[in-house]
């Protein structure tokens, strides 16, 4: 069972376009009111698989014992030099979707706050997972989380990624015709793992891990095909949040 910590309201405020501003007390109170029902509606869970990177070229990545091929320059760049790739999927569960539908009928202010807070919650599940992963693989350095739809990694691999993880069976996560994840508050991602005990890799690693460089190179408004900033590893740095 995955447990959810108190929701990071600063993160939620960021998704709501507050930037550096603090929400006023009325809004903060409303957020507090939203937290209970949201926590109750959340049944967070995740699953993952760790695969050897069999081949990694500039255009595509092949993982061993797995029918999923990752295509695009960006994923090639991300996983270059990585021994392993982690396929990861997480969801807050369908209860949050039901809560959101109800709030959108009865209380739009709470609906948008809950939406942003749910985004912060799934983000937190992802971060916690990456921390666990770090403990599990102390000698491996993780790349950033990279999701289908970022840069040129096709969103269309979403279904195959879930099949590979049996995510439907394990955590109830599915895709729609349009490759959207259902339940809605869900994330899938690829994380590269690189052995840092290899001395000669270290300096090169430093450059590669500078995720700001990757973001600035790959993302500008209009390029990103993510549905929302919530749960996106770029959220804090993305242009979209600059002027919302």
């Amino acid at each position, binding site marked *: 069972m995955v447990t959810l910590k108190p929701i990071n309201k600063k993160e939620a405020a960021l998704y709501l376009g507050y930037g550096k501003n603090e929400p006023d007390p009325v*809004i903060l109170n409303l957020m507090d009111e939203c937290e209970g029902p949201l926590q109750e509606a959340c049944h967070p869970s995740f699953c993952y698989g760790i695969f050897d990177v069999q081949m990694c070229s500039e255009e595509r990545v092949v993982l061993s014992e797995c029918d999923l091929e990752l295509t695009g320059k960006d994923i090639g760049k991300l996983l270059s030099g990585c021994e392993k790739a982690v396929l990861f999927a997480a969801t807050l569960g369908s209860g949050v979707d039901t809560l959101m539908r*109800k709030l959108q009928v009865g209380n739009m202010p709470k609906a948008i706050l809950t939406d942003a807070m749910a985004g912060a919650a799934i983000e937190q599940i992802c971060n916690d997972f990456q921390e666990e992963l770090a403990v599990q693989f102390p000698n491996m350095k993780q790349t950033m989380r990279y999701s289908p739809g970022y840069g040129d990694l096709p969103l269309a691999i979403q279904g195959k990624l879930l099949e590979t993880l049996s995510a439907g069976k394990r955590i109830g996560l599915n895709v729609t015709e349009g490759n959207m994840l259902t339940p809605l508050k869900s994330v899938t991602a690829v994380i590269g793992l690189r052995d840092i005990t290899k001395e000669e890799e270290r300096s090169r690693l430093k450059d590669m891990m500078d995720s700001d460089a990757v973001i600035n190179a790959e993302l500008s408004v209009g390029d990103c095909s993510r549905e929302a900033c919530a749960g996106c590893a770029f959220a804090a740095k993305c242009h979209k949040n600059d002027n919302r």
Partner: protein
Amino acid sequence: MKNDRIKILDGAMGTRLQAMGLPLGGIPEVWNITEPEKVTSVHASYLAAGSDIVYTNTFGANSYKMRDSGYTVTELISAGVANARKACADYPGSKVALDVGPLGKLLSPLGDLSFEDAYELFREQVVAGKDADLIVIETMTDLYEAKAALLAAKENSDKPVFVTMSFEANGRTFTGTSIECMALTLSGLGADAIGFNCSLGPAELTPMVKKLYELTELPIVLKPNAGLPDPVTNQYNVSAEEFADCIGELLPYGLIAAGGCCGTTPEYIAALKAKAVAFAEEEKRTDLPEKRKVTGICSSTDAVWFSEPRVIGERINPTGKKRFKEALLNGDMDYILSQAISQVDAGADILDVNVGLPGVDEKEMMVRVVKELQAIVNVPLQIDSKMPEVIEAALRIYNGRALVNSVDGEEKNLTSILPIVKKYGAAVVGLTLDEGGIPTKAEGRFAIAERIVKRAEALGIKRNDVQIDCLTLTASAEQAAVAETLKALAMVHDRLHTGAVLGVSNISFGLPNRELVNSTFLTMALQNGLTLPIMNPNSEAMMGALRAYRLLMNLDQHAMAYTEAYKDFVPAKADAKPGATTPAGSVADETEAKIRSELGDKAAELYAAVLTGRAERGELLADELLSEGDPMTMVNGVLIPALDTVGAGFEKGRIFLPQLMLSASVVQGVFGRVKEYMAKTGQEQVSKGLIILATVKGDIHDIGKNIVKMLLENYGFTVRDLGRDVDPQVVVQAAKETGAPLVGLSALMTTTLGSMEETIRALKEAGLNCKTVVGGAVLTPEYAERIGADYYGSDAKATVDIAREVFHC
């Protein structure tokens, strides 16, 4: 042999095929055709270990999952059945079960697959698997999907059907279905056996099996995993012996079939077979728990047992409600849904749904309203209609077990309605009237009740699934009849032993202080055996009477619910003015000063209430202003200027989206009061113009569209909301029908921008000269122009400005 009923099923298939070289994420069903020997060898290994029934390798063999497989469903399933049959040839008496798993796509409202399409996908599988001996629907986590599959199986095959669902450790499936809801829904729909498979090991499933045993009369099927998987190695942690020991203990609990799911091998099946053989021979008796006698109904997540009085909310019904009638005629779903939410929040256990109104296609509307309701509320529904075809359509798409309101003693109704109730496994209200009308005397009503119960029982509907309505007559018209209703209630309770329904509020029609009469009558009726009052849960007096009744009858033990409800109770003071609250600090700005001088203090305070987001205060002030003056003055003189002030702050970055929405919701509330006022005074609603909104095909994120909708309505526009995942042709059709001058399209992902472009093209090709405005997180003004949109709405406020420009207001 004493207990030889138990059949041994097989173990895992997918993992065995992977061990033989099927890659992760590969399609196992394709091997039915490309590697038939390997698939057959897996079946054979389980038969050799003792399986009586093997599941075909067709778990995911539906058109959706197989779309890229290169084979048709019929090819894959026929081959799958043939492989299993071939393996069975050496084991006389062994059976082939057509395995039907989840579709791999969530049903609406969770996903984008309609119930009807899901049924069609399952139907195709059932037909393709006609040569199997039985059908197993397994690993279901969505009760709605399980229902579609079960209906498809029952309607297209006469083979026995097992349905097993997968539960998490918290006793619910991924979509929130509880064991109670599974038992109530699937038992009613005619499954031959139900149970559990996958997700957990036998130890975790043990308490669930025992619980299910109490909840259903049906035999139970169990196919657990070999324990829980290690997250890293994916190895399961329960040995074959432990597995068999654990299930062995459960065999007396109504089990009819047992096997293994993920992580199990022939070794597990052999161990299990040994247990079943020993069980068949032994005399040992287990003290089994009693089956639950009380009946209940459920949504997909919440069961309501008729073990004590339950409130049925009466407000979703146009009778005598002008505003509701108007909402039905205009398809104003938000109003109907808000009635549902307020009743549930007030404590309704069940919601009655009646949408019968001249000028409204009742069947279509019923299906629409039931689908919308079950997407947002968790309480079960009571389907209220006189028309068999409406009842059937609603029961078919209902996600759970419903109560039907109602059948009466008239012969043609008994013959047309009861079979539908039986088919869909619903409970039913029996009205004590017939061709001869309502009998005056209690004895006459009782006789009809008895007749209805007999007819229901003859069809296999259980007695306790019939809830008798002894009918409330209006006290002001027929004062002496009240006693007859109460007497009939008592007779039904004492002699017929069924539950009893009663529409309580009718009693006071035409009298002053209706709540007093209603709550007194409610208490009297409860005392005489009423179990399901149909009433307005928003009536504090009636809910109070019910709470007190539950307390006094020791149903609310230790008065927990009562004290919780009244912990902040303060006796009303005689001189208190209802609703008078202290005004918060005023928002001194020029606009406010101007409104104060032109329209007075109350108008200025309403302006401030919008700015500060105080909804209750806003509605109270609106009511006062409406009683004094013209609604349009209030709308144009106060609400719009307030929205403009907030909007300007939003544009300048001084106010953020949540505050904007808070103000918008105050205005929404005030508009609700205006609509109520207009309906009451018979005035026509004034609209600034009609705008169509839709989230485009393929996109199911619609919060952005809903924000825009709310703000547009705030400014007095009428919005026809087509929802999410809307086909371009549906938009064209709506634009044609309504002649709306502006169509707003929303998309949240780059992948669905194509649908947006397609929709705009379709509108142009249809020769419609409406303008289009597009918006969404990933859109840019350049892109909007490229796809031919007339306007780009960067946010909700900007979209309102565009609408004002288009409509010149």
